[in-house]
């Protein structure tokens, strides 16, 4: 396996793990997930930082004066006030996972090994552009849209109910 990722393979081999994402389905999926998550870290960080900075310091200080410990201050004040930010990021990250991970999969595994990393967007593209099954591709893209709309609607229905906007 000649690839720049061979370094990590050698390092993991020395640690006693047979790392080969071109043959092992679970490792391939794990690698794609790690790469996709890594890519989103900075985006989420930025929004959480903005959310944290938007929390009035006076609230936290008042709670501290009332004798609330660090844990209590976090769960009772900071966490609820971050809920709108967290909810926004939840929705955006799920949409990202369904659609924008295409580039990572296409570059790293091309949907392989044995279709282990072939998520629906990748299959839509593969069946349509490579397999030239345009009808099937279009149908699957409509199904993908329905899934994402349903998931987003469910989140707004059941999770947003517990989010309070200040």
């Amino acid at each position: 396996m000649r690839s720049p990722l061979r370094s990590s393979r050698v390092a993991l081999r020395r640690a006693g793990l047979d790392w080969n994402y071109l043959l092992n389905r679970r490792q391939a999926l794990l690698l794609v997930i790690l790469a996709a998550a890594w890519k989103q870290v900075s985006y989420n960080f930025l929004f959480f930082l903005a959310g944290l900075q938007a929390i009035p310091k006076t609230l936290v200080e008042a709670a501290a004066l009332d004798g609330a410990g660090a844990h209590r201050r976090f769960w009772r004040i900071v966490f609820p006030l971050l809920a709108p930010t967290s909810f926004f990021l939840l929705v955006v990250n799920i949409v990202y996972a369904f659609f924008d991970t295409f580039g990572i999969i296409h570059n790293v595994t091309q949907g392989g090994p044995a279709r282990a990393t072939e998520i629906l967007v990748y299959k839509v593209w593969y069946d349509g552009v490579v397999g030239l099954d345009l009808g099937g591709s279009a149908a699957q893209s409509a199904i993908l849209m329905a899934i994402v709309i349903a998931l987003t609607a469910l989140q707004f229905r059941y999770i947003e109910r517990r989010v309070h906007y200040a």
Partner: protein
Amino acid sequence: MVSSGKNAWLAHAVLMLGLAVVLFPVYVAFVASSLPLADILDAPMTLVPGQNPQPITARRSLWERVAACRFEHRGR
């Protein structure tokens, strides 16, 4: 008041660790851009940038290489 000495150190350590995790792959890409292909594919890839920044296509600036890549790769 809210964050005191020891906690602040811990928080900074966690932030620094996160920064390292985020920046490491970017650094590897930077180092790889300065190495010849054989060195990039070498099993433990070196993490030291190459001595000569552009050994692959001799005597070309980085910007010329970026511009050239766009067209050379079309031909594949």
